[in-house]
């Protein structure tokens, strides 16, 4: 009997059936890695990626739930749902990526497999039942993204952004690992449920609180919450726009999911510590993000600040530790996918056009040059602003109800006032598109992928805006799963 056999016999063979989606993503990444060495057939590479993502997306609903890798990996409805949306996001990014990269003359095969590695990291993050798996996942996701952010090699801004991202992101992971170490020192475990038990039984002292606070700062940095947001505008602006979409949506969603999971599962009874912390971070993000976005003329940068503001709206839900608030957070995260992707994919599609520089002046008269595209952008903008009948309204409404329900009026008022301020810059885009005369008559052309992605996002925003019930039910169910994990 070999040592290996002995090990397997002792611990039991890990159950691979629950990680089939991850395996598919990993294999796809390796396949591209290998193919890319021998062939430069760009079409083939993107087709394989799309195929892999589609396959993973199809497999996810049929993946059984359960634990594997000796309790280090947990697959439940919560993680599967988020995995599905992460894969979906990546799918849309991949189908619009190739035309953009070719137009910008910065095509490299690395984009595809790094994106998949990053996706894999995020999938690990959302199915981690303990801090170690989470840490490995976030590192895999982040490191792949540092490279992705800097891959616009001819562009100085991209390097600057990626470097900032690397430094700040590195600081974030360092903080996270330090926080984890402190928590481990106090509770003797990485496991969420053990930490929760230990803290409940009275171990919430300086060590645990300090660890939690440092972990919280690290997570806030990853979620680009003010005052740890400095990398965000530069990294978002510098990266190629499809990658920006990926960072602004997929990375954010995974981070929100994991923040929720850690806060609820590992620190369920340390509410007084983290609710106030998140409330302050959320308020700062909303205020700063919206005010700075007002002053931007570069729309990509404006959307970067707007995504900081949206982090604020989403994290605000954590100020109120109730089932309803968690549901609102999940709902807002899920619907933010559609708005965020819509906005950035729109920019990605436009940047390929002749003479487009993302400056607000380029938006002049867009409604005349391309009525359908302008209509889509109008939908995304009003959704981010939160005007019904777009789904953005229900996102904000959910958070808002949660805050008032917990009597946190000050944050609710900040949210409302900041929504009004944000009208300033979202409306500006609509005004430039609809109420100014076009400065150029050049025709646009869009690839099939771009047209499909944009139409999909806009349609979904409107459908969900009129019938949000499905997503409310999903979010409510996921909250129930989360709370079930802590036996509540």
């Amino acid at each position: 009997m070999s040592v290996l056999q002995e090990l397997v016999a002792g611990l039991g063979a890990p159950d691979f059936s629950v990680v089939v989606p991850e395996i598919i993503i990993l294999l796809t990444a390796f396949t591209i890695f290998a193919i890319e060495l021998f062939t430069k057939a760009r079409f083939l590479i993107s087709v394989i990626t799309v195929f892999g993502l589609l396959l993973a997306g199809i497999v996810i609903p049929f993946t059984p739930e359960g634990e594997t890798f000796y309790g280090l990996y947990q697959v439940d409805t919560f993680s599967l749902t988020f995995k599905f949306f992460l894969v979906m996001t990546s799918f849309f990014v991949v189908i619009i990526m190739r035309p953009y990269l070719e137009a910008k003359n910065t095509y490299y095969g690395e984009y595809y497999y790094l994106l998949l590695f990053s996706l894999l990291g995020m999938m690990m993050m959302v199915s981690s039942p303990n801090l170690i798996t989470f840490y490995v996942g976030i590192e895999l996701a982040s490191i792949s993204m540092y490279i992705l952010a800097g891959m616009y090699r001819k562009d100085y801004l991209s390097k600057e952004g990626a470097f900032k991202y690397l430094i700040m992101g590195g600081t974030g992971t360092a903080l996270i690992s330090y926080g984890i170490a402190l928590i481990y020192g106090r509770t003797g475990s990485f496991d969420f449920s053990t930490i929760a038990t230990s803290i409940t039984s009275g171990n919430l002292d300086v060590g645990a609180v300090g660890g939690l606070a440092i972990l919280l700062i690290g997570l806030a940095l990853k979620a680009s919450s003010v005052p740890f947001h400095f990398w965000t505008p530069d990294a978002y602006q510098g990266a190629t726009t499809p990658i920006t979409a990926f960072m602004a949506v997929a990375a954010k969603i995974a981070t929100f999911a994991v923040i929720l999971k850690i806060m609820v599962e590992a620190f369920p009874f340390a509410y007084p510590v983290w609710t106030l912390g998140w409330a302050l971070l959320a308020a700062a993000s909303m205020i700063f993000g919206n005010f700075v976005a007002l002053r931007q003329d570069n729309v990509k940068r404006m959307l970067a600040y707007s995504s900081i503001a949206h982090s604020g709206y989403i994290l605000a839900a954590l100020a109120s530790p109730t089932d309803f608030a968690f549901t609102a957070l999940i709902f807002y995260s899920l619907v933010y996918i559609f708005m965020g992707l819509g906005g950035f994919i729109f920019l990605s599609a436009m940047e390929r056009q002749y003479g487009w520089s993302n400056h607000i002046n380029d938006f002049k008269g867009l409604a005349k040059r391309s009525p359908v595209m302008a209509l889509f952008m109008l939908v995304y903008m009003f959704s981010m602003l939160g005007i019904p009948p777009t789904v953005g309204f229900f996102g904000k409404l959910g958070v808002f109800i949660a805050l008032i329900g917990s009597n946190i009026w000050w944050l609710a008022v900040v949210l409302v006032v900041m929504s009004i301020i944000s009208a300033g810059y979202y409306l500006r885009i609509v005004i430039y598109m609809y109420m100014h005369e076009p400065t150029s008559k050049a025709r646009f052309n869009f690839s099939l992928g771009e047209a499909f992605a944009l139409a999909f996002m806009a349609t979904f925003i409107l459908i969900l805006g009129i019938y949000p019930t499905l997503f409310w039910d999903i979010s409510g169910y996921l909250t129930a799963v989360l709370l079930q994990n802590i036996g509540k």
Partner: protein
Amino acid sequence: MTVEFVNATFPIITVSILIPLIAAGVVFFTDEKHAKPISIITSIIVFILSTFMLFTYDYSTYAIQFYEKYSWIPFLGVSYEVGVDALSLTMVWLTAISFVAAFVWSTNIQKRIKEYFIAFLILEAACIGVFVSWDMVWFYIFWEAMLIPMFLIIGVWGYAERIYAATKFFIYTFFGSLFLLIGVVGMYIYQFVEKGILSTSYFDLVNLGLPFRLEIIFFLLLALGFAIKVPMWPFHTWLPAAHVQAPTAGSVILAAVLLKMGTYGFVRFSLPWFPEASKYFVPVMFALGVIAIIYTAMMAIAQTHIKRLIAYSSVSHMGFVTLGTFALNMEGMNGAIITMISHGFTSAALFLAAGFIYERVHSYEIKDLGGLARFMPVFATLFMISAMASAGLPGLSGFVGEFLALLGTFKASVITAVLAGLSLVVGAGYTLWLYHKAMFKESELPNEKIEKWEKLKDMNTAELLSFLPLVIMMFVIGIYPAWWIRLIETTSAAILSKFIGG
């Protein structure tokens, strides 16, 4: 307050909301030249539907009729709940007729035709939705959704300062409606905490029995949202800007329908939900109403721009609605509702007249006009009737509503009624003055103007058709108001049931 419901055998209200939306989709995908006929036919269908409701509505007892309710987001306790009482019905009918006028008028539009009609069709659906929703989330959805098309209408098809006006309009009303949202969510949470009911239905919230302190807070939050929409002094500054810059049809809808949403909100929500707070704030509302009436009437006198003058007069007329509403008696309430509908007709007609003048003379400045009556007799007649109705000449619609509103106010507070009544004179003054300067004064007319005027054509068919229904209605309500008062009487009584015990 217990309310009876009469379920709809046919979902007529839902259909009236859906038809414009479907038509908007059709216009989007068809050729530009079909946009006008499709829109006009759609608005006429909606008008027929609402007229059908008007004539089959049973006014003998108070009940929510044509009622439909479907569960929508059980998680939040939200349902899709629509129905009409006489107040809603009046507003829906006013909306329908105003949109017919606006669409028929808009046959002259040349710029970006498709988008124009799509925006108006969506606006129509949202406006109807506001008046028929009994679920607060749906109410808010329609209330806000209306901002998007109106913002585009002012901003795209308006005049020189249109972007400023559109932005001001949007941000002002968005600001107000978010406070409305805070208030409604606060009540929703209170209801859940105190009674364990998870519901956004009007009929649950109306029986909340709030403590006085909370009533005051929620009243103020909601009142801010409504007061901006009305607009009441001192929140009225967006209105002249928006009216001056909006295209004619946009002004018509803005004055005839959108302003009514604010007063509708006061009548529908503030009074039944916060009876104690409403009583408490009567002096404040009276003061604001009187200031609105007098101050804006004075402002109107000083205007040289026709549309700005009419806009200020609108604020002034809305002051009467505020007074009537907060008089908290039957006369006042009936007067408020009649004034709402009558102002819908008169202001719509006056804005159409302003647009008519602009199309021919290409100026809104009163000094550029004069002596038009001799050259366009038909127009002059219709304009005269509308102006008289607006000024409150007996026999026309304006008189009935304002008289009743004043009567109600007089019962509540003599001094308020006297002050408001005096300003009627000012109101008559600026309207007549406008008419006199624009249409008469032939003797002072320089020769080049006469030459120019002689080439002008009187009303064409489209203009006449959009004008006539409004003018006819002014007569109908003015001469036989009893019909409409009988329609709304049970509703007024129900709304005031917490004040006068009926």
